């Protein structure tokens, strides 16, 4: 049945009613989750991940400490109910280990680890629902959770998956599309435009690569706007709740101040 669905129909609609360059609905929840220092629940359409960040804290194992910077430890756990077919994935699963390693290497140049020598930052990624774009959700979630935990980053990291159907590029693929098209995941730092991750598991024609790569980069900036406003909303809510900051809708100057601070990211 799966192959019966048209990836991109003549009218320019994808199987879920989006057009080529439309990203799925993105929701971000930055509320406190358990005892984590920072956490974020990110959904892209029907893909949902919960990322919790602990630290920086003392490394549990001496062997993992690095004398001049913090060690980032990423652990990914895929819930058995996250896919249609109930399937238990063990922690030793190679694909999951690879996913974790990818996330780790994406963030190593972004997190200012040299501020916390001999310590460890734990990132726990819980995959709650899967419908394509898992890596992008994990990266975006990790960014937000790190921000939420107050860990200094050089920039946001925003990831988007892009694919090519026939010759038409598409963004933010669902599972259905991911299975049927060559695709590439790109993570960018929107402020500088630097790319921290490009990865693909399928073969993509070299002529198509540049276009889809640039598109995914641009899409990353759009995602960045969404993430930034989520962080801002969360922060201003927190500030309001603490009663120490300006009341909502109060002084312009203070507001601008907060804004300026936020613009650092």
């Amino acid at each position, binding site marked *: 049945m799966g192959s019966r669905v048209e990836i991109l129909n*003549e009218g320019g609609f994808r199987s879920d009613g989006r057009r080529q360059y439309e990203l799925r609905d993105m929701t971000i929840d930055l509320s406190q989750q358990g005892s984590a220092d920072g956490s974020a629940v990110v959904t892209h359409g029907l893909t949902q991940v919960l990322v919790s960040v602990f630290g920086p804290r003392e490394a549990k194992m001496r062997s993992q400490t690095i004398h001049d910077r913090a060690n980032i430890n990423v652990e990914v756990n895929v819930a058995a109910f996250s896919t249609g077919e109930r399937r238990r994935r063990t922690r030793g699963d190679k694909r999951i280990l690879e996913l974790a390693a990818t996330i780790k290497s994406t963030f190593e140049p972004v997190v200012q680890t040299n501020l916390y020598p001999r310590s460890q930052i734990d990132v726990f990624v819980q995959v709650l629902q899967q*419908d394509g774009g898992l890596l992008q959700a994990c990266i975006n979630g990790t960014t937000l959770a790190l921000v939420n935990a107050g860990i200094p980053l050089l920039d946001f990291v925003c990831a988007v998956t892009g694919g090519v159907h026939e010759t038409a590029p598409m963004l933010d693929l669902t599972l259905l599309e991911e299975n049927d098209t060559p695709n590439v995941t790109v993570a960018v730092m929107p402020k500088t435009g630097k790319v921290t991750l490009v990865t693909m598991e399928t073969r993509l024609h070299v002529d198509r690569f540049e276009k889809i790569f640039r*598109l995914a980069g641009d899409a990353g900036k759009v995602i960045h706007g969404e993430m930034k406003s989520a962080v801002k909303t969360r922060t201003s809510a927190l500030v309001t709740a603490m009663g120490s900051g300006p009341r909502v809708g109060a002084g312009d100057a203070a507001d601008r101040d907060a804004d300026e601070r936020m613009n650092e990211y």
Partner: protein
Amino acid sequence: MVDITIRKRPRTEAVVTQRKFFKKTARGKVIKVLRERYLRDDVGCGIQGCSACPGSSDDALPMAGDQRHQLFPHGHFVLPDTNVFLSQMDLVESNLFMPPIILLQTVIEEVRHRSLPLYNRLKALIKMDDKRIWVFYNEYRSETAIIREEGETPNDRNDRGIRKATAWYNDHLRVTRPPIRGQPPPNLPTVVLMTEDAANRQKAEKAGLSCISVRKYVEGMKEPTQLLDLLAAEGSTDIEPTRAVAGRQALYPDYIPTGTLLAGIKAGELYQGHFNANQYNYLEGSVPVPAFTKPVLLIGRENMNRAVHGDVVVVEVLDEKEWKAPADEVVDQESTLKNDDAEDSGEEAEEGDQVIRKEKQVLLSEDVKRTSEKQPTGRIVGIIKRNWRAYVCHIDSTSLTTSNATSLSQQTVFATPVSRLLPRIRLRTRQAPTLIGQKILVTIDRWEATSRYPEAHFVRALGKVESKEAEQESLLLEFEVPYRPFGKAILDCLPVEGEQWVVPPKSASSPEWKDREDLREMIICSIDPPNCQDIDDALHARHLPNGNIEVGVHIADVSHFVLPDNPMDSEAASRGTTVYLVDKRIDMLPSLLGTNLCSLRPFVERLAFSTIWEMTPDAEIVNVRFTKSVIASKAAFTYEEAQIRKDDPNLKDDLTVGIRLLNTLAQKLKAGRMAAGALNLASPEVKIYLDSTESTEPIDVEQKELRETNSLVEEFMLLANISVARKIQETFPQTAVLRRHMPPPRTNFEKLQDILLKRKGLTLDVSSSGALAASLDKCLDPDEPAFNTLVRIMATRCMLSAEYFCSGSVGRDTFGHYGLASPIYTHFTSPIRRYADVLAHRQLAAAIGYTPLHATLHSKSHVERVLDVVNRRHRMAQMAGRASVEFYVGLALKGRNEREKGQVREDAFVIRTFRNGLGVFVSKLGIEGLVMFKRDIQFDADNYTITVPASMASGAKDVTIAVFDKVTVNIEVEKDKNTQRGRVKMTLVQPVDSSSM
């Protein structure tokens, strides 16, 4: 930079925007699937100048709709339901049916779900420029999107969606064209729901929508008559909704266990035989069994029970009252099963019902029409042995779910075999899109009782259709011709000197010269077709002092080089024969032997095996002797050169005299043979002229010309073969390698006799070959010289084919060669290209005491086994050769078509009549073709005529066409749209134009 946005999907709308369903996998696991969709307001309605929708240049629908229909004076748009496309696709495709159509996404998807081929037709329809079709993506528009309710079937849900979209469109028209104050309210066009489903119509009317059935709509059109013809029959409106099928039903009965089968055969209740598919009617097959004079007929899929052409099957013969006659209708698999679906999913049984119903209809309609004589009818109950091989196929492009070349998904598609005798094959592949337009090789894996088609896997691609290499290779594969280059072990058996090998100087000690006669001084020449490289025979004749004539036939001494039981010998035995294609020759022996060392080239000494007769000037044989010899041919003529030389009175040299002498003797021999009752048969052989070896474009097709010298060579070869046959049969009565041609059973001629009698008032006496030859001579039509040739061709087809056999394996009385009217015959004269000749050489050498006979040739079973292979290879080689000619004739036709703008017209003879077509034979091109009529014509099976009524023939009178009538046909080479398989399409031009019928 493109505009990248994030589509928002509020959580509150999740009921509408999320879809949850359960899916069962192929393994039977149940999976929950959750899909989301994004509803939007920017889905355009497609009406030109709409104020609410973002206008685009390709809006297809005119603002006022179509105002020509009398029921809708204010204009209308048609919004068809799914069943319109499922049952009335022909109508919608007609270029007379031109209302503006709103095509809903729901409808497209439902069509796709039901039948991929129909879906692909629909897609082509949308792309057509002259149709005004707008696709409205109603499932993505927030107002028209609906979700399936509890307890609602998918079909009902779709119907509701279609009604909702209709309602929306009508509202949309009203809202976007509000009445302007001071003016009368504008006349709004209506959006009409067109559906064949009465229940849907009722519900629509209740909701206040205007709706109409297809028939009613067409009747209301300005010129309905032509379109009414295109309407599918009323009965087909009952397309049932898709229902979930619990398990797949068995489509075929199970086979009986082997033990029971064998017991049944032994007891004489069941019969074993080879299954032959009918190339004109895919729903019919036959199994010839010795117990009945006529083959057992198998009608319908269930009775053929998964047998594939060539399988060894067991049949059960039905009661005599259920016996039927073969249908005289052409039933084309592609057109009947055009809309069948390859996907192997749950819907199978559902679609299957339709197919079965359709096929039953075909069979039923045939049943009524079956007129000819009844013959044993049965069903297959078991298979003894499958004879599956790799088949060359084309992929049917309509069966693809996606033609996207980058798609990575696995698809189930149909592969249509090149051979018309084979069923369609279901193939699972991941590279289907790239295989379209290619010839591919597939192997059948299995044919389950639950599957309508056999299942196969992809082996490899041969190349693009119509490329020379792919066509050539596919031919060789299709006819199982071994065409790999010779291996090292084989080449090691060649003389070490290679090209430099020569006959050593004459000396008593040299093994080559042992017991060989020195005939180097004889005036020997060879006569062959032009460009012949493997010259395996040469001739001489001279006067003897006693007034008699000495005639020698010298055959290349292949058995000197090919020793028994070495790798080269086994390879030659398995190849059996050299295969001649138009542009390629696949050798039986390595070319060093075939075209050099064994080839009796002029001016070089070569080893030969000679048959030398002493004959009286009246061509009576005084005596014959056989000897190994060394010859040096003095000339290599083509038939034409020899003929010119013979006819030139100025030439009086020894060679010319020899040829003249041979010619006079040959004429006498031939006369003698004819008197004995030999048949002069005809075959539709043509010659292809190739432009050059590089290009594939054949220049011209021409019938083979026969000269006197052709028959000269032929006569002496026959004589040599007969003499050798006598000798080896005498010496080795148990294992001699002979060739025979069984007299055809009288029943084979019945039809031809009947046709001749009824159409021409001629009788054919088939009591003996002599009588047949005599009556064939009398089959003349004074107005039509080609008529005689035609009858001969048809008579040839009634005969059995000649075969090699081992003299000890059959009764002495069956040795005869029917066609040549010779009591005994073998093949001796072409050892370079036929393996049987090599065996005959070895036996003859042993018979004259030259060498002892190799042990294998003493074993009857061994000889039988080898000859079985050779017989099969021989048959295949002939068919491959013919197919190769056909391919080039097709190419030549295509070339001519392009030059002459589709006006290739040739005279043809009708050779068969069908209920819905004519079998014609174009003698000039040597091809047979089928003229099909789409509409019914009158068919008189008893008199072999069809009558085209005056109304269709656009003439004043009915036109009757009978077998043997001369007609003019227009020949086109048409490519099947779906499979890219080229096929010759013929239409009548004279006496009636059938292009529109």
